[in-house]
């Protein structure tokens, strides 16, 4: 029995029939090696086990979490959570506990990554830094391994484990002006190639030397996968979130053609390329959920609470704290094609190649209009070729409209890419017909 399974079992035993209850737990090590100015300056790790508990007493619900996991700590924690539940109003939306269910076979885990040392992470960093030569490098390499457990008083239990290795780095010719980005992620640290990432970022940084100002306006764009990942992170959280949809704040209209016919978006932890575990915070098994098929909005991410209100089944996307935030997809895929980024560029008469969308914020979730900036490599494309680097631009653009009918000219090959919001998604590069830039270095 893993530490996480043991924590869940002890908590449910201590509830001792006083309440409906579900316990979730995770335990493992997270490590991150961070570098700037071309050397490692912050190198951190933590061992952490935590226990979450939701109890329902006569329809009154309380949730709590703790890292105090000795016997006395768990006993005090369970008693305090039950006592808290008694003091709040009845939760009319409580959907009940999940019952026993078959779990999908998911094991996104690599033992070598689980025990990766700071020396191994440093070696990847060194390869990235060395690939840039005189350029100034910054970024991080991280690994984590966790065991997960779930148990409830309805007799349902579940277990899982995962590892993930992530890398993000930039090379800077002139910091804040001419830089290049590379990201990668995998279940296996061995899959990360610091030298290749470094070569890509360095080439971008050198190509970005002496950027020129470009008048804001509407341009065709070729978005690198990191940019598409950012679009989908926001659409996932604000739009495909069933709670937001039920409350009228989502832009999604089920059954409507809201995306280009070439767009297909789904969530699937069962995919061999995915990361994560096979069930959610309510113990519901995860499965593939189609969100957009041939441009039509067809699905939402549900937890048990939203599913009950909508008269459907949970899709296995509950998160801790979902009573407030709702459920949202966490293993997003977007279909791509066979084209390379160079192929996409070749199809642009005049437009921009964008490497990263930074500091994006949504002005209204109903329209998904966002503002943000380009960074770490923005280039002018003329007659099918990159001709010159451009200074960072501000945009004010609907993320829904960006992928809307008729605006997706072509999609490139899909790969894992880290969004600027720290999520990792499997997405393609994209050639879009129009992107609305509203400002530059002069405002």
């Amino acid at each position, binding site marked *: 029995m893993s530490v996480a399974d043991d924590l869940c079992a002890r908590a449910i035993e201590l509830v001792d029939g006083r309440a409906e209850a579900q316990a979730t737990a995770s335990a493992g090590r997270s490590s991150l090696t*961070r570098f700037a100015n071309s050397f490692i*300056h912050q190198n951190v790790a933590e061992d*952490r086990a935590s226990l979450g508990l939701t109890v329902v007493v006569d329809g009154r619900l309380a949730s709590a979490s703790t890292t105090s996991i000795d016997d006395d700590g768990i006993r005090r924690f369970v008693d305090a959570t039950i006592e808290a539940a008694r003091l709040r109003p009845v939760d009319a939306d409580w959907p009940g506990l999940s019952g026993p269910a078959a779990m999908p076979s998911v094991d996104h885990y690599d033992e070598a990554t689980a025990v990766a040392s700071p020396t191994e992470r440093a070696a990847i960093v060194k390869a990235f830094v060395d690939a840039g030569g005189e350029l100034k490098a*910054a*970024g991080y390499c991280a690994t984590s391994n966790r065991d997960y457990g779930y148990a409830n008083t309805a007799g349902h239990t579940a277990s899982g484990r995962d590892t993930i290795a992530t890398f993000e780095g*930039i090379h800077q010719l002139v910091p804040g002006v001419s830089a290049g980005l590379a990201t990668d992620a995998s279940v296996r640290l061995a899959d990360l190639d610091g030298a290749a990432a470094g070569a890509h970022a360095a080439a971008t940084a050198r190509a970005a030397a002496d950027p020129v100002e470009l008048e804001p306006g509407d341009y065709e764009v070729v978005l690198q996968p990191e940019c598409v990942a950012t679009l989908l992170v926001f659409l996932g959280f604000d739009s495909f979130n069933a709670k937001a949809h039920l409350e009228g704040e989502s832009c999604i209209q089920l059954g409507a053609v809201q995306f280009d016919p070439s767009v297909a978006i789904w969530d699937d932890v069962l995919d061999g390329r995915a990361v994560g575990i096979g069930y959610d915070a309510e113990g519901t098994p995860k499965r593939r959920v189609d969100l957009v098929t041939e441009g039509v909005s067809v699905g939402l991410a549900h937890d048990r609470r939203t599913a009950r209100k909508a008269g459907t089944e949970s899709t296995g996307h509950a998160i801790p704290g979902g009573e407030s935030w709702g459920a949202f997809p966490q293993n997003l895929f977007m279909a791509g094609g066979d084209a390379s980024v160079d192929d996409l560029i070749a199809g642009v008469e005049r437009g921009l190649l964008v490497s990263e969308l930074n500091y994006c914020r949504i002005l209204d979730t*109903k329209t998904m209009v966002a503002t943000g900036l380009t960074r770490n490599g923005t280039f002018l494309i003329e007659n099918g070729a990159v001709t010159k680097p451009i200074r960072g631009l501000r945009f004010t653009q609907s993320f829904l*409209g960006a992928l809307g009918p008729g605006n997706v000219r072509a999609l490139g090959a899909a790969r894992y890419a880290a969004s600027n919001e720290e999520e990792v998604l499997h997405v393609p590069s994209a050639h879009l017909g129009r992107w609305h830039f*509203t400002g530059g270095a002069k405002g």
Partner: protein
Amino acid sequence: MFDYAQAAVEGALAAGATYADARVVLRRSQRLSCLNQQIEAMSQDEDGGVGVRALIGSSWGFFATQDLTDAAARAAGQHAADIARASAIVSGPPLRLTDVPVNETHWETPHTEDPFAVPLSGKADLLVAVSAAIQAVKGVSLARANVTFWDTNKWFVSSQGHRISQHVVESGGGMSATAVGEDETQVRSYPQSFGQFETGGYEVIRRFDMPAHATRIGEEAVALLTAPACPAGTTDVILESSQLALQIHESVGHAIELDRILGWEAAYAGTSFLELPNLGSMRYGSELMNITADATLPGALGSFGYDDEGTPAQRVDIVKEGTWVGVLSGRDSAAIAGLPPGGMVRGDGYNRMPMVRMTNVGLLPGDSSLDEMIADTDDGIYMATNRSWSIDDKRLNFQFGCQIAWEIKNGKRGRMLRNPTYTGITPQFWGSLDRVGGEAEWVFWGTPNCGKGQPGQVGHTGHPASPGRFRGVRVGVKG
């Protein structure tokens, strides 16, 4: 608890660290949120453990464990040193620390009413009542209210002899009304976007008097759905104080972080347009711009007794009469820059390495007032309460959206405007500041959700501000 921190430090030194410090942190939080008269979430979270930082050569190593035993703390210290040593594979210049006074002391947030002793039922009743009052306004779709409390105990020990304990109490909350239209949503919040947060006890919540403002924000949210859109163009803008507080946070607070200026955050949060050789001479804004970073302000969210390196809380001039004169720093960054340490390094819980964080970075009051600014404006827009925010990674190019605005014509506040936005470039924008509200309108706004660092950390920062007027600002940017 000092003993565990001491054991962690000793473990790091025994493993070769040239300097080490450790914090035992026990933190509790409680949050209640209400939607349309239903308590939708009530959570109580606690975490605790020891985090130890070891310096070897050019790198910090940090390790955290929740296991509060002598052996585990000592092992954590050794891990931290081992991790720091591994950094030598990609090493840089050796890191030095500036000297700070060595203290053995205790500090506690002044507060009168322990927020955790107030019954949950009373808090739930307040939120339900507030939500009901908002929902009573016809046209309101979503009536939200929430409160959050933190209680943090810290014990800090360094290899130089510090032994400092602190008890920090923070309270806050707020409410919002959302009106959902056919093609857009409109939101009004009180006391500010996402609520107001301060150091202090439950007295903070009582002072907000949320019930008195519930109907107003509901009516404003509904009215916004049919209000005319903020026009596009260039005009004079008056910012309500909570929006000005966020403007300070984004375009001053982050820009003056010395770790950003030194490039330590380049890959994620970014750098800064500020360059150290220009400290003391660069013009940041107009002569009315006086910014301080003051961790000693009673009640402000960024106040404490000592930072997480044991440096006493202090007030530092950042911008004086428009000239950039100061930074936010820690012992390592200050040593590189040749500056005295600012006491501005904090970590998010026991398991995150302390880093440069804003304290209370605020605009000192001027001698004007909101009424006087409006009366003195022929043609402009008054914007209030943040709705969206974005700024580039050098903290130059920003764009903010506000929840509500009013047209100003011939010195009078006129019709309501929906979807107001404004955009600009930091030094030019601050250079256009020509009116600052006085002490009577000076509010210690709190930001409880400042993200920074990898792995991510959430910081609690304060931003004293009163209303201000800016001339010739670009407004009405649309998607």
